[in-house]
Every structure is written in structure tokens, then in C-alpha cells.
């Protein structure tokens, strides 16, 4: 007999343990730090953008003199363009992606399926260091001559070609996107194979936590669609570096700028689901855990996730309704887009059903999860206005779109990331976070988020276009200045409230000692809570055997026999009536 997943001795040198580690738990923490750092950077840029919309042309307090010396501290038009470009790119690719995929994926996949590590631990380590390289490219792009990237996060040509952004910064940013794509694909291969091959005995696909389902589907989409962005990036780099004209039309070429939009959104729409799928999974699990009820219609949720993943590859055209698309094609894309709401609705109703009449425990992760449900509903509903051609003709490229995708992509993923951090913090660090500070962080963020993004929806509906340097140059939106100013105050409030988290997080990561009741403080049954906190280097002393699904709560038989309202996935228990969930 031989061991399939042999136990290796834990490394002892500092470098092997904390820097070039192949341990998925360490890599997860590395992605967490790298992601949080860039989240702060992206958030800082957001504050500057908000300042500009509230007080266009006025000098920025504190940092203005240093950042915009040529204009005496006020944001210049070209500086403004760089701000929103880098805000978007940094948040999506270098903050949310590493947090949702790199951090959650690495932490959860082996622990929740009962494996000792990833299928390819060295590839896993490489994926993190390639990611660091991409972040360094981003940082370099911010400081090179002729300035940082400035073509918007969508990087549309001709803006992103040498004609409009001749600087090295734009080139470096496109390279950074290519490199972060390589890192993502390395991770995706690892996650997919690990989930297929390394599930513990008894861990059938329909016994996996929904978190794992979300991560798995997101990885498949990553694997297939990130390379499409790669192809667009390569063509763009050829245009920028070797003077081809694939995307340059008009006097200087006969290329096709719309081609880029096709490739970008062919990737870009799946990408938005790549980011929301892990969040959906994690939140769906939390709703069940803290309602002390089985996840309602678990299999239905799984099939909804699968259906949405497939459909997400077929709807990208809804970003291009006004790009000169044939009406026939436009209507097909509209139909497919609206068809997504059916499985999405099922998923949503399952969440509501799960919490309905549950014994809800309003823990910090649960508060964040409920907040997620709320903001995601708003995001999804506004999506329908954009997916319908007749309304999108008016709303396209307004702040309404910005509000829509901030509710779905920013607000929802932000809340999911923090729900996860609060939930798994004890598992990762062996200490509790302060729950009162956590609740303050939740309520302040929740108020801030809703204030900011509702403000965006309203001004967009009133006709304010996105990406305007000084919106009030247009008389028809001049009266929106006070509303925008209020929105900015909400944004600053949100920014300041993050400090509550920073204090709570740093203090508890670095303070000494090991807390009580740390192995399974939430009383849940998934596999990571059957091992000590933090887990041993090899996770499981013996590979566990799984008997139940991840959501066995409040079963009266269990309560009667064991006196508790939950059952670990590894606890053998014969129900009198065969359950087949």
C-alpha cells in the first residue's frame, strides 16, 4: 500500500515557510495581503475621483500638492483620466481577483474537500509569484515617463493605441494584464484538477460546499476566457510596439477598433461572473450556516450556478448595443441576457428560502452576507434595464452603468470578501477578531456603499455621463452637483470606515496568544472546521471520510441523539429516514 498524498515534513527555514512556500494555506495568506494592499491603493484612487466630482478643479487636500504639482494640487484632466483607469484595473484584476480567487480558492479548496494540498503545489507557488510580478508591472506603470495608463479600464482602442496614449505606462499595464492572466490560468488549472481528483472519500460533487462549486465554475470560466483577453492584449501590444494596425482605423490604418470590443467583452462578461461566482457560493453557505437550516434546494442552486456559467459565455454583446450592431444580433443578445435572470432568480429565491424562518445568528459574517443579498438584488435589478436595448440606448455610458456594476461587482464582492475574512480568520490565524468592531465595520460600510452607489444610479438616470472630468460644464446636469457632493461624503465615510477593519485585522493578526474556542467557533460542519485552528501543515492527519452534505443543521433526530443542532460532514449518523440530499 502506498500513500497517495504523503505527509511531508513542514519546512523550517523562514524563506520556505513564509515566502517561497508551497503550502496552500500560506499562499492563501499571501494572496490576501497582496489583494488587501491593492484594495487600499484602488480605494485611495476612488477617493480622488470622488473629490473631483464634488469639487472639480479645487486643490485636493493633503495629497494634492504632491500628486499634481503642476496644477497647484488640483486634479488635471489627464490626471483624472489616469485615476479612473487605474482605479478600475487595480480593483478588478489586482484586488478583487486575488481576494476572491487567489485567497478563497487557496484557503478553501484543499481544506473543504479534504485534501492535504493542491494537486500541483509548486505550480500554485509559481502562480502567486507571477501575480506579484504583474503587480510590480502595475506599480511601474504608475511612475514611468509620459504617465500611467489612461484608456479606461476597458482599454478600448484607439484610446489605448499609441495615437492617444503613447506612454510606456499604458504598455506596461497591458503587459501586467497579460501576466496576471497567466497567473490566473495557472491557478485555475490547479483548482480544477484538485477538485476533480482530490476530494476525500465520500465527498461527491453534490456534497461539496457551494463555495467550492462557485470556485470551480469560476476557474473553468477563467481557464477558457482569460486567454481571450490575452489574445486582445497581444494584438494591442503588437499595435503599440510593432506598428501593426489591427485596431487602428482612419487615416493611419484600416484596422477595426470594434474588434477589440468583441474580444474584450467575450472575456469581460464571463469575467464579471468569474468574480461573482465564488462570492455567491460563499454567501450561500453562510446563509445556511447562520440560519441553522439546510441550504434550500441545494441541487437547484448548483444547477443554477452551472446554467449561469454556461449562459455567461453567450451574452457579451449586451455591452455593445450602441456599437453599431445589427438589430437582429442585438435582440438575440438581449434575449440571452434576460434569460440569465431565470437561473439567477432561482438562486436568489433559494437564499431567501434558506433564511426564511431560520434561527438566524446575526454574527459578523452573517451581517455581511445579508448585506450582500440586499446590494446584489439592487445590482441585478438595474442590470435588467441595461440588458433591454430600448432602455440601454439611453442609459449606456451613463453613471447608471457605473452604479449597476458597482452594486454587483464592487459592493457585493466587497461584502463577500469581508464576510469570508471574518469567518475564516479564526481558522487562519488561531485568534478571534473583535466582533463589536466587526459589526461597526459592517454597518458603516453598508451605509457608505449604499449611499455612494445609489448616488451614482440617480445621477446616471438623470443623464450624467460616466468619465466626465467636470460634469457641470454641461448645463443640463449642473443641478446634480449637490447630489454628487453628498455621494462623495458617503464615499469618504466608507473610506474612513475601512480603518475600523484595518485596526481589527492588524491587531489580531499580530497580537500574541491563542484564543479559546477557536477550532469551530461558528459550530458548522464543513471539513475545515474538523481540524485544529490553524490547521497542521498537512491539514488532515488522516484523510477524512465524508458522510453528509455541508448543510446539516437543525435536524430533530440529530438534536435528540447528540444534543446539538449541527452535524459535521465527517460525523457518522444514520437517519431513520434515508436522506438523499
Amino acid at each position: 500500500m502506498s500513500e497517495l498524498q504523503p505527509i511531508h515534513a513542514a519546512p523550517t527555514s523562514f524563506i520556505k515557510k513564509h515566502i517561497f512556500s508551497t503550502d496552500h494555506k500560506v499562499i492563501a495568506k499571501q494572496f490576501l495581503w497582496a489583494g488587501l494592499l491593492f484594495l487600499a491603493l484602488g480605494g485611495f484612487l476612488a477617493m480622488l475621483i470622488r473629490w473631483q466630482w464634488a469639487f472639480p478643479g479645487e486643490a485636493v487636500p493633503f495629497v494634492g500638492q504632491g500628486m499634481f504639482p503642476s496644477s497647484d494640487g488640483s486634479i488635471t484632466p489627464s490626471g483624472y483620466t489616469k485615476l479612473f483607469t487605474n482605479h478600475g484595473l487595480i480593483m478588478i484584476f489586482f484586488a478583487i481577483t486575488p481576494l476572491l480567487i487567489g485567497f478563497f480558492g487557496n484557503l478553501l479548496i484543499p481544506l473543504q474537500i479534504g485534501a492535504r494540498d493542491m494537486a500541483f503545489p509548486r505550480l500554485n507557488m509559481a502562480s502567486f509569484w507571477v501575480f506579484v510580478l504583474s503587480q510590480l508591472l502595475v506599480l511601474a506603470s504608475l511612475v514611468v515617463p509620459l504617465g500611467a495608463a489612461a484608456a479606461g479600464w476597458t482599454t478600448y482602442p484607439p484610446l489605448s493605441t499609441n495615437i492617444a496614449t503613447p506612454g510606456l505606462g499604458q504598455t506596461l499595464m497591458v503587459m501586467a494584464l497579460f501576466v496576471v492572466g497567466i497567473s490566473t490560468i495557472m491557478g485555475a488549472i490547479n483548482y480544477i484538477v484538485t477538485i476533480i481528483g482530490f476530494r476525500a472519500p465520500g465527498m461527491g460533487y453534490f456534497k461539496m460546499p457551494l463555495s467550492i462549486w462557485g470556485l470551480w465554475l469560476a476557474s473553468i470560466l477563467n481557464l477558457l476566457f482569460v486567454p481571450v483577453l490575452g489574445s486582445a492584449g497581444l494584438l494591442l501590444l503588437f499595435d503599440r510596439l510593432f506598428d501593426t494596425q489591427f485596431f487602428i482605423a482612419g487615416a493611419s490604418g484600416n484596422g477595426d477598433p470594434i474588434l477589440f470590443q468583441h474580444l474584450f467583452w467575450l472575456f469581460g462578461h464571463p469575467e464579471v461572473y468569474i468574480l461573482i461566482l465564488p462570492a455567491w457560493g460563499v454567501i450561500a453557505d453562510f446563509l445556511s450556516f447562520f440560519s441553522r437550516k439546510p441550504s434550500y434546494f441545494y441541487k437547484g442552486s448548483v444547477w443554477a450556478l452551472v446554467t449561469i456559467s454556461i449562459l455567461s459565455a453567450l451574452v457579451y454583446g449586451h455591452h455593445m448595443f450602441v456599437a453599431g450592431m445589427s438589430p437582429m444580433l442585438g435582440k438575440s443578445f438581449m434575449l440571452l441576457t434576460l434569460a440569465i435572470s431565470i437561473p439567477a432568480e432561482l438562486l436568489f429565491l433559494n437564499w431567501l428560502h434558506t433564511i426564511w424562518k431560520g434561527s438566524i445568528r446575526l454574527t459578523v459574517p452573517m451581517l455581511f452576507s445579508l448585506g450582500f443579498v440586499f446590494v446584489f438584488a439592487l445590482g441585478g435589478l438595474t442590470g435588467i434595464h441595461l440588458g433591454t436595448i430600448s432602455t440601454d440606448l439611453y442609459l449606456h455610458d451613463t453613471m447608471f452603468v457605473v452604479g449597476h456594476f458597482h452594486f454587483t461587482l464592487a459592493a457585493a464582492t466587497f461584502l463577500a470578501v469581508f464576510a469570508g475574512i471574518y469567518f475564516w480568520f479564526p481558522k487562519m490565524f488561531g485568534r478571534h477578531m473583535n466582533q463589536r468592531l466587526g459589526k461597526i465595520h459592517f454597518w458603516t460600510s453598508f451605509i457608505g456603499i449604499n449611499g455612494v452607489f445609489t448616488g451614482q444610479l440617480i445621477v446616471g438616470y438623470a443623464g450624467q455621463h460616466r468619465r466626465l472630468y467636470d460634469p457641470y460644464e454641461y448645463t443640463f446636469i449642473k443641478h446634480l452637483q449637490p447630489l454628487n457632493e453628498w455621494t462623495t461624503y458617503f464615499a469618504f465615510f466608507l473610506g474612513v470606515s475601512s480603518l475600523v477593519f484595518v485596526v481589527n485585522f492588524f491587531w489580531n493578526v499580530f497580537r500574541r496568544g491563542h484564543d479559546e474556542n477557536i477550532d469551530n467557533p461558528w459550530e458548522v460542519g464543513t471539513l475545515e472546521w474538523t481540524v485544529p485552528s490553524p490547521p497542521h501543515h498537512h491539514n488532515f492527519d488522516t484523510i477524512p471520510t465524508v458522510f453528509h452534505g455541508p448543510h446539516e443543521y437543525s435536524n430533530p433526530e440529530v438534536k435528540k441523539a447528540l444534543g446539538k443542532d449541527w452535524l459535521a460532514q465527517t460525523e457518522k449518523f444514520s437517519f431513520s429516514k434515508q436522506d438523499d440530499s
Partner: protein
Amino acid sequence: MTSLTNTVSPVQAMMIRSSSAMIGMVAFIASWAMLFGGLFFAFGLLRLGSEAWPPVNVINLPIALPAINTGILLSSSVLLMVAMHYLRKGNERATVHALLIATILGIMFVVTQAWLWNEMSGLGLNLSDSHYGGLFYMFTVIHVIHVVVGIGGLLALTINAYRGRYTQESHLPVRLWSMYWHFVGVVWIPMFVLLFLS
């Protein structure tokens, strides 16, 4: 593949490990195919948007040399299958020879490609005058980068086979690199058709 118990027979352990590696390779190839899928999509749109193909006043690409080169790449793939065949039979010497020839054919492909670039740029076909030239260089350069990586792999296989590292039962790297190398050949075919024949 079923989920695993920790203690399994050595043969089972090897099978699970190798099937993980193979799934990983299939996933990698799928990803890579999508990269080329995006590029082919671009080719299609740019080609449809061009009035004449090849455009007037642009040097046309030859057919004969690329056709021969296609033959070279495909025979390299065939030689790799031959190597696999001998490996399964346990004929180590023949395996090493077949691998060596496959590697040399791979190198010949790159040399011929470089020669073609040199020739065409000498005749005045460049990246920036037309999509015809731009697409030719773009596709062939990206493809050759993958070929060069593959040659590195084949070289390592040849050396390891020479040292007797692979046996009838255990030769996972040969199988993985074979998948890689066959795919390099497979994506070349539509490229050859689109760039040189259409």
C-alpha cells in the same frame, strides 16, 4: 475518476497521479486553444473588413516552403507517436532515436520559419503596411514561441530517455509532452490554411 482514499495500491496511486497530470494538461491545452481562438476570430474580422486579399501592392507569401514546413512539423508529431509505440514495447534504443529525430524536426521547423521571415522581410513584407503582413508575423511569432518551448521539452525527454529514466509502465512526461507537441501541430494547420492558402 472517483474520489480517493489515502491508502491505495502503488499502481492505483500512479494512475491517479498521472490522470491528474493529464487533466491538467488537457485544461492547459483548452486554455491555449482559446488564445488562438481569439486570434483566429481577429483574423476573420480583419480579413472580412479588407477589400482585397492579399491586398494589392503587397508581396504575396509563398506556398511551397510553408507546405514543406507543415510536413516537417507533422512528421515530428508522427515520430513522437512512434517513440511512444517503442516505449510501450520496451525498445529503449528505438525510443531514443525516434525522440531525437522528432526534436531535430522541430528545430528544422523553427529554422525554416526564421528563414521565411528573413526572406519575406527582405522582399519588403513588413508588419505595419498591411494586415496581411501583420497577421502573418503575429501568428507565426506567437506559434514559434510555443514551438520553442516544446523543443525544450522534447530535448529533455530525449536526454532522460537516453539515461533510461522511462520504462514501459512509467513514462508520464513523455505522454504529457506528446499532448503538448501534437497540439502545436494541430493549431498550425488552420494557421497554415488561413495565412498561406486563403
